[in-house]
């Protein structure tokens, strides 16, 4: 078992899939010769050559459109949108083209591609390079949406995404690129649509995604040692398909649900999970479902303000302990 950074896991995942299947190609801005602005694709150009790993102009519509045209005629493209915020300039492909193709053509054509993108805050880039846009993609029928929190999940879920016959939006978290984790040798392939229980517990369920996962785990540790509250932490990993079974089973056991979301509050993914749990596990609940989110604001660049905005371990601890002790929400 070797330690690998989240960043290097991206490279290894793409290499694993390109090695396996010559139909896998990779394109994006600065991804080839420069190895990506986050250095997450270093060496792929040298290893697989300029026909398979291609630098593009700053043309997000051309990148995603080309990926789609290649996918619908037989390739398995991986396209990079450097910052997930830029999804807004090519949203036609994400919202109107990829996810509607199979349905509108009654199954004649499909769009097996992966869009990987640097998502999330914590890097002081300000309001247009820091957003958590996973909920923008979650709401569109026809897409699959993944957001790994660890190096090993990056590899396994990327492999699953490349092998999937649907368009998959793969949210990499910018603040996790430097994080290290244990990664086994050999091929790693995971399953889309599966959540992971990272910490078992009996008093409350915390569901989290991407950067919020390590923060939820840290909070759970403090809640256990300082407040006597034993939390179960679930890494949702895949928003579509959504592993509701794992979440509902956990709530049946703990009777309490907290979501920890980096997205601004309105229509965050946790709202959908809260709705499902309220509909289907209401009688399992011993108290209200509580969402811990970024406030409904654009993100500031200043470090002290950004830190105030994004949910962190102390805020999660404070909120959960207060609610679990029966105080005001």
């Amino acid at each position, binding site marked *: 078992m070797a330690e690998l950074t989240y960043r290097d896991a991206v490279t290894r995942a793409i290499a694993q899939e390109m090695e396996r299947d010559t139909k896998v190609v990779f394109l994006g801005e600065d991804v080839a010769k420069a190895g990506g602005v986050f250095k997450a694709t270093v060496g792929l150009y040298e290893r697989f050559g300029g026909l398979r790993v291609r630098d593009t102009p700053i043309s997000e519509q051309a990148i995603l459109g080309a990926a789609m045209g290649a996918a619908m005629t037989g*390739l398995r493209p991986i396209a990079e949108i450097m910052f997930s915020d830029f999804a807004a300039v090519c949203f036609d492909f994400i919202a109107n083209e990829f996810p509607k193709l199979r349905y509108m*053509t009654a199954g004649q054509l499909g769009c097996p591609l992966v869009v990987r993108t640097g998502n999330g805050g914590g890097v002081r880039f300000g309001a247009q390079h820091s957003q958590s846009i996973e909920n923008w993609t979650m709401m569109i029928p026809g897409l699959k949406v993944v957001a790994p929190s660890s190096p090993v999940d990056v590899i396994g879920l990327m492999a699953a995404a490349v092998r999937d016959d649907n368009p998959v939006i793969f949210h990499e978290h910018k603040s996790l690129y430097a994080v290290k984790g244990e990664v086994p040798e050999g091929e790693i392939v995971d399953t889309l649509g599966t959540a992971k229980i990272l910490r078992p517990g009996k008093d409350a369920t915390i569901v989290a995604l991407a950067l919020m996962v390590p923060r939820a785990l840290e909070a759970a540790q403090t809640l256990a040692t300082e407040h006597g509250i034993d939390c179960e932490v679930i890494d949702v990993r895949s928003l579509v398909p959504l592993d509701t079974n794992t979440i509902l089973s956990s709530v049946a056991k703990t009777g309490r649900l907290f979501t920890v979301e980096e997205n601004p509050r309105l229509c965050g993914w946790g709202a959908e999970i809260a709705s499902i749990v309220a509909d289907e596990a209401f009688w399992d609940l011993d108290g209200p479902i509580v969402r811990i989110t970024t406030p409904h604001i654009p993100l500031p660049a200043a470090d002290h303000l950004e830190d105030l905005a994004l949910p962190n371990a102390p805020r999660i601890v404070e909120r959960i302990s207060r609610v679990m002790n029966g105080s005001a929400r």
Partner: protein
Amino acid sequence: MASKAKVVSTEHLSNDDIGQDVRLEMFRLQVEIRDCEKRANDLFFQNLIKGTSHLSLGQEAVAAGVATAMQPGDKSFCTYRGHAHTLARGVSMEKVLGELMLRDNGLMRGKGGSMHLTSAEHGVMGSYAIIGAHLPIACGAAWRAQYLGEKDVSVCFFGDGTTNIGAFHEALNFAAVWKLPVVFICENNLYMEYTPIGEVTAVEHPAADRASAYGLERIIIDGNDADAVYRTALQAFAKARSGAGPSLIECLTYRHSGHSRADPAKYRPPGELERWLEKDPIKIYRKRLLEFGASQEQIAAIEAESKRKVDAATEVCKAAPPAPLDQLTADVYADGGWSWRN
């Protein structure tokens, strides 16, 4: 738009490089497209076609000329004004009208409708209703051919209005830089929708005058002359197949009907439609065939057969059922279903 540009004329009488068989085929396509589009219009007013519909009446020569120059395996990427290009690749009127009438026998079982005609088996890789989107998509299909060493060409049709959207410029640059085997065909019918293209465009020729920005040749042809379209398309396809990269062709033509079913086209200046009706592509081509020795009987037979086909297709479609209700949730995902959770 008062065009002062030189229009490439075809010296058809001195040099018959096309041949009668190809000409008869291009005539048949134009006549069948015309009859099918007129029928679509009629069916609309009988409320048998719902939603919207964008006809290519008057623009048939572009579809016929390009499609006749294409090889099997070449890919067509069309717009919402795509009935003509779909029919021109050999898709039956029954499949097209069935889709327009939203019946189960339609190309996409009624799930796509008039604006999204697709027949993958004929190389019709979709009709796209968000202006400009399919130019990058056609680039991607061409990239696949380039990467795999396949010899097919991707052909992308669009209107003059598309030349003012970002995706047009992104795709042209991308195709040129990557030297992709893609051919962009602009049907300049003078109106973006209701507004004359000249009023909203910085250059006189919305596509061709932008070509030099991408290192491409400025090509403007008479889009109402199927021979000119056919010849120009052949050259562009040969260039694409040889690895020499993309072409951008501006075809000057005119839409006889409004933008869509809802548009009576009252914005046209008096006399404009009449002048263009004189240049009706089918009228031009009937004359052309006679000049090259086709008989009135041959022409009449093609016209009669087209009428028979459209009548027969109409009857089949009228009798066809709508899609079964399970189609509502079919084919959202590749497993055939719509499940987003366990």
